[in-house]
């Protein structure tokens, strides 16, 4: 169990993590947020690479800087270090100094992913290096594994295989895996819970069920002649976000595909958006359509970004 209490970290003059509170139990978590949201900083704080300015990090009810906790947590950064001229064999040797490595499993992964053990790492492609380091991270017997942008540059076949291995190892037991990414598609069919952060603050945390009621997506077709009449006989009329905002709707996105508009609004329990749109804009078609999990996450990020720019 990871508890992050009122965590704050300043890097130079920027507040990278801003009074963040988190509660992480076991399972596979996706940590998402746009570039510079504070994902890597959070990982560095959790793994004691950085020290926090304010707040507390407790892992299994103990401070994260304790040796016992550190030996049970592994953070794989987005561009990991390896010594010059080192091979996968040397790399394994290095990590064996600090952690318990399941060598049989590691060799199995290297073989399955066709990674040469005695070839220098510098000659590996970017994707191969990533595969090698993920294999190593999965073979390290720790309770908490943090992967930062781990899937960048990996081909779909290898990615599927790695995802299967992750699910085998980290779902349905007492282990925790947190994968940070700005690319939500890469986390598809993998994470059962998501943490969304923006500007160092938490936007949302939860699983699909808890997040699915936040937004509603409508498919709308307007009859423009009707619309002109209903909006004070203006000669020129454009359907944009402001139109819906005037109706007190919290618009998150509005896209036009042909003559069909796709509108996503944030749910407000006090109002019924369906009725409001129907009464005010008299659309030809107004239909609620389901949102995918990835869409919900993206919308959360988008909404957080909009909130952030409002505050600025």
């Amino acid at each position, binding site marked *: 169990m990871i508890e992050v209490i009122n965590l704050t970290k300043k890097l130079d003059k920027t507040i990278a993590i801003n009074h963040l509170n988190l509660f992480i139990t076991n399972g596979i978590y996706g940590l998402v947020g746009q570039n510079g949201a504070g994902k890597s900083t959070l990982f*560095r704080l959790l793994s004691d*690479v950085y020290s926090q300015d304010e707040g507390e990090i407790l892992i299994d009810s103990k401070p994260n800087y304790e040796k016992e906790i550190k030996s049970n947590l592994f953070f794989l950064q987005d561009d990991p270090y390896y010594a010059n001229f080192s091979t996968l064999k040397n790399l394994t040797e290095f990590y064996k100094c600090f952690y318990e490595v399941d060598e049989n499993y590691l060799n199995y992964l290297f073989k399955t992913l066709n990674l040469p053990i005695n070839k220098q790492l510098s000659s590996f492609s970017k994707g191969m290096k990533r595969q090698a380091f993920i294999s190593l991270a999965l073979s390290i017997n720790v309770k908490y594994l943090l992967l930062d942008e781990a899937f960048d540059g990996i081909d779909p076949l290898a990615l599927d295989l790695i995802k299967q291995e992750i699910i085998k190892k980290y779902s349905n037991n007492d282990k925790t895996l947190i994968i940070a990414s700005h690319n939500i598609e890469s986390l598809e069919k993998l994470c059962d819970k998501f943490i969304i952060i923006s500007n160092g603050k938490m936007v949302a945390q939860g699983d699909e069920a808890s997040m699915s009621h936040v937004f509603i997506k409508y498919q709308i077709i307007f009859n423009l002649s009707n619309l002109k009449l209903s909006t004070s006989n203006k000669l020129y009329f454009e359907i944009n976000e402001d139109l819906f905002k005037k109706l007190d709707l919290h618009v998150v996105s509005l896209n036009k595909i042909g003559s069909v508009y796709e509108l996503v609004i944030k749910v407000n329990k006090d109002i019924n958006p369906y009725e409001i749109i129907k009464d005010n804009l008299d659309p030809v078609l107004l239909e609620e359509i389901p949102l995918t999990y990835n869409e919900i996450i993206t919308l959360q990020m988008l909404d957080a970004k909009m909130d952030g720019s409002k505050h600025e």
Partner: protein
Amino acid sequence: MNKKYIKYQIKQWLPLIGIISGILIITLIIDLIFSKNPMNYHYYEASKSNVSYQNPLIITSCCILCLTFFVPLFVFSYKYSIKKADTYVQSPFKNNNLKITNFILGYLCLALPFIVIFLIGLLSTYITQLINNPYHVIVVPQNPGMTYYSHITFYYNYGYLILFMFFILFMLFIEYSLNSFAANFANNTIDALIYISLFFIFRMLILYAIPQYFMQNLDIIEYDFNIFNLSLTIMPVISFALTVFNSLISRGYFDAKDVFISDLYKYQYVGYVISFTFIIMIGIFAALYIFFIKDKYKENYGRKRNNTIFDYLLPHLTMMFIAFSLYTITRYDTTSKIVIFLAFFVMYYCLLASLNKSFKIKKYDLIFGGAISLVNFCLFIASITIEHLYL
């Protein structure tokens, strides 16, 4: 201590140990060429009361002390790159153990090759002396009319040579701690080199000033401050070692009592003894700091340092150092004084450019640099004028 890590790190540093050993072997060969010379006769005038003796392994000993400048760069290299810092700092070490382990391993990288090569040198000198010739000192007459010649034959006192080795090992630890202390504050290799150099300059100014103070006050030697006098890294150490040990090393066991120690109190060596004590004290403080003080601001590891007042202080101190080293030239010459002022400014620009890793310097920095150069120049001129008029 993590035994697996120690084993891994030693393996990683084998090339470094190899380079250190290689350099020491070269210096040992140079040492042995001098001591094996069949013309190993040294001539002294009869009037000289003190005859200096050659230490057979002095170059090797000086060399290992100089190598302490570079080893801390490897010891703290885990701080000098973001990637490395991410990997090493998260590793499960207790408190300061990563730093302490690397620090001790760095010392062993220096000490072990030195011990081996020193003992080889000792054995080689012993065999040479048995087969070939001892160290000869010939005292020649002071007056041409006299016919008295004295020929003294010395054998090295190997017991004292081993004692000398332990002394150098101790001083190696002190010098290594001092340089590591400076490197510990840096977050990248260039900064580490600058810090080590700056700390060295600062140390040397203090350490050289102490003996000079005693010389001046005892009115024995004319006060003269010149860069060439500062050429040795650990001058007080070497001076002390040469003074105390050389006399012991070269004597037989039976006449070892007749040594120079009594002279230490008579001449400028009082200053050296004080600087020697001072360097040991700050060296021990540096080692304790590395052992017990945990690093703050780990997020700066591997990153470029923001310009601080320290960046302005560095050129300032360096310029002062160079200016004083040119003291004797500048004392009476007006052209040199102008050149010194320009040199101040150029030095400032070069150092700031290297710190910023760019030759484009902000206007503010240039104006500030000009002001600092002017202040420096005025201080310098004032100090030499006062000294010229009153001292």
